């Protein structure tokens, strides 16, 4: 039976990516009791995961600093509920944690956006980051033919990485036009570090076709992926399609806590404080901006949460510099209208509940479609089809309810505070 554990912190940070690591370190350096919860087995978030043991890397540096200053890390532990002010509930495989805090930093990152097209639910069609994660956890990719498609800088990063792992990357299909990419490239000139990364990735991808204004029209195959038809008419035979349409901020926890969002991002002030006093947010929940922005926002949030506003202010200049990159990202990788039309009437949009496009198209809002079709009501709780329908039908997402991730029933029933009927 489950064990219930209670922990209390001056500052609790949710999300152990670059933003969360930076926030927790800076707050702990101020002498506070700091907790850092992350749902992956190891810290680092989307980009640093798996690099935290490589000496000399940024990732290793922050993780090392966090253990030196005594950040209490709870890895493999996912926050699912905000049952009472100042308290979050989190679960690991066999434990439930009641985490109480004075200040909270939400650094929950982002996820890939998927758009439905015929065949996108076939086995071996996956997200770009998703395929990367699978390979990291052991999927053999050596010599496999991989097509990378969608939009955003992640495509290039993942393609280069997959190639280093021995994959035969056939092409990268970027829906953005050559013109917007060129403008983006020019913007990178103001961000030498980013430009350096980009050039090095280009180098690693020498010989790989890079197709702009190109997107997948259909994935074909009987029981798994065999080929992809591209918008330019070409049919590419391949083993894997790694396909994502940029990133969507993870704002569910912030919304559950009551923080205001706008345009899909958590609203924060200059100290990264949300509309809820004492609740801060840093990194991708506040907007997609890349790792440097996550780190600097994390530092500001950590310092501000620790009450060190003067010190936080010192990072404002640096944040301003990298924010330009975030704006350039938004401009360059906006989704083109044609993508609204690639789904066929019978194309599945909600994978959890098997809801096809035409079942949704007859409804006027996300809420009504949810009620009548149960779109978005499965285990992923609309994380995949929500952003897709937002784009396809201009629907606004619904309010958020606990649990924000599926949670074990007895963990959801946890009520440690009064002890009257806790689990265990």
């Amino acid at each position, binding site marked *: 039976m489950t064990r219930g554990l209670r922990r209390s912190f001056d500052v609790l940070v949710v999300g152990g990516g670059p933003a969360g690591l930076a926030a927790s370190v800076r707050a702990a350096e101020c002498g506070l009791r700091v907790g850092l919860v992350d749902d992956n087995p190891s810290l680092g978030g989307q980009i640093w995961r798996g690099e935290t043991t490589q000496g000399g890397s940024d990732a290793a540096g922050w993780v090392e600093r966090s253990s030196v200053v005594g950040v209490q890390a709870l890895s493999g532990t996912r926050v699912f509920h905000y*049952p009472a002010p100042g308290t979050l509930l989190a679960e690991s495989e066999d434990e439930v944690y009641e985490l109480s805090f004075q200040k909270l930093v939400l650094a929950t990152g982002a996820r890939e956006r998927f758009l439905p097209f015929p065949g996108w639910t076939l086995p071996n069609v996956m997200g770009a980051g998703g395929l990367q994660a699978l390979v990291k956890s052991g999927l053999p990719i050596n010599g496999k033919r991989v097509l990378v498609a969608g939009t955003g800088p992640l495509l290039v990063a993942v393609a280069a990485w997959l190639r280093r792992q021995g994959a035969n990357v056939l092409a990268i299909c970027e829906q953005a036009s050559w013109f917007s990419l060129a403008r983006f490239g020019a913007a990178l000139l103001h961000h030498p570090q980013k430009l350096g990364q980009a050039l090095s990735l280009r180098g690693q991808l020498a010989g790989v076709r890079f197709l702009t204004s190109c997107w997948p029209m259909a994935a074909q195959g009987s029981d798994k992926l065999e080929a992809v038809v591209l918008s330019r008419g070409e049919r590419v035979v391949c083993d894997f399609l790694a396909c994502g349409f940029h990133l969507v901020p993870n704002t569910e926890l912030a919304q559950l806590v009551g923080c205001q969002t706008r345009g899909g991002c958590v609203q924060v002030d200059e100290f990264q404080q949300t509309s809820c006093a004492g609740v801060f947010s840093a990194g991708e929940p506040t907007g997609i901006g890349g790792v440097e922005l996550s780190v600097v926002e994390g530092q500001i949030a950590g310092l501000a949460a620790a009450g060190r506003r003067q010190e936080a202010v010192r990072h404002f200049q640096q944040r301003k510099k990298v924010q330009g990159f975030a704006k350039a990202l938004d401009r360059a990788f906006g989704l083109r209208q044609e993508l609204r039309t690639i789904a066929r009437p019978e194309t599945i949009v909600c994978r959890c509940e098997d809801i096809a496009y035409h079942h949704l198209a007859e409804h006027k809002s996300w809420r009504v479609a949810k*009620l009548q079709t149960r779109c978005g*009501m499965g285990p992923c709780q609309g994380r995949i089809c929500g952003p897709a329908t937002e784009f396809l039908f201009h629907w606004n997402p619904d309010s958020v*309810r606990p649990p924000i991730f599926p*949670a074990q*029933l007895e963990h*959801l*029933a946890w*009520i440690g505070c009064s002890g009257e009927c806790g689990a265990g």
Partner: protein
Amino acid sequence: MSKAAYEVVIVGAGIVGAACADEFARRGLQVLVMERDALASGATAAGMGHIVVMDDSEAQFALTRYSQRLWQELQPELPDNVEYEQCGTIWIAADEEEMEEVLRKHESYGKGGVPTEVCSAQRLKHLEPNLRDGMTGGLLVPEDGVLYPPSAAWFLIGRAQQHGAQLRLGASVVEIGQGRVRLRDGSEIRGDIIVNATGASAPELTPGLEVKSRKGHLVITDRYPGFLRHQLVELGYLKSAHSVSSDSVAFNVQPRRTGQILIGSSRQFGVEHKEVDQVILARMLERAQQYMPTLRGMLAVRTWTGFRAATPDKLPLIGSWPGDKSLFLATGHEGLGITTSLGTARILVDQIMATEPEIPIEPYLPSRTAKAYLRA
């Protein structure tokens, strides 16, 4: 202001308003339904969809039984997405005292023509292997069923529209009576008959109505096909759920066609906000785990709340509102409005069209509660 006129204006497009619209329209009346929000987005979106015969009182039995039969008759016409399944209810007896209730119910249902089967502990275990050991027995009511309420309401409204009814969404009504319906935007619509079918909001439009909001919580799990076969309800329900004063929880679980398990239920008075209340949620889930310990490790996917429209005598208000010949009520269905929506619509329209109702209507007439109000 221009005044459109209809024979019937129904305010509220929950399952009750939808059923009434369908009944009026199919009998040839010209109907307008006004809904301030989305179709079936109130209690109907939150309810469990258990189509159940209950016998807290003779009148409750009559209406639930009648309505259940109407659902059965409708079954061939119900589209697949209504997910109507005649899975049966088992009332669970956890001790000897509750087993006596099983026997009483068996007899009382039998008299009313509802087949039931008294189950021994062993038989119960056979029917529902995931119940914990040590239950005393149960009562199987095989003709009870479940459905998905929002789709049922959608179907009823759709059928009403096929018979000429009109539906106006986003129409917030602020005043009704004396043959008029006034909207928030100031416009007015005339109706010979106006039906207040606004569920727990009914007193906002009909002041003096003794209808109170009773909050309920539900939880739904991930898919576990075959785990649960019948709707299971504890008989302690009768002791706890109907206590009018205090918060209560009861073991009440429902198998969905998807293999998901819907877990209820809680009852709270005097709570206005929709947010999930951790203390009552935890009590409710704890209760469920007491009856089905293996629920413990299952994944809960969502929780939500809804408001039942409760009356002091636990019976709905169906019929004309004294003092206003144009005004009729169809509300106060508490935890049974999905079931009783069809019966409600029938006997309301019977009253208005002066056709012979199939069950006595007196117990549901609003005049029974209005007297006190009018005197005051």
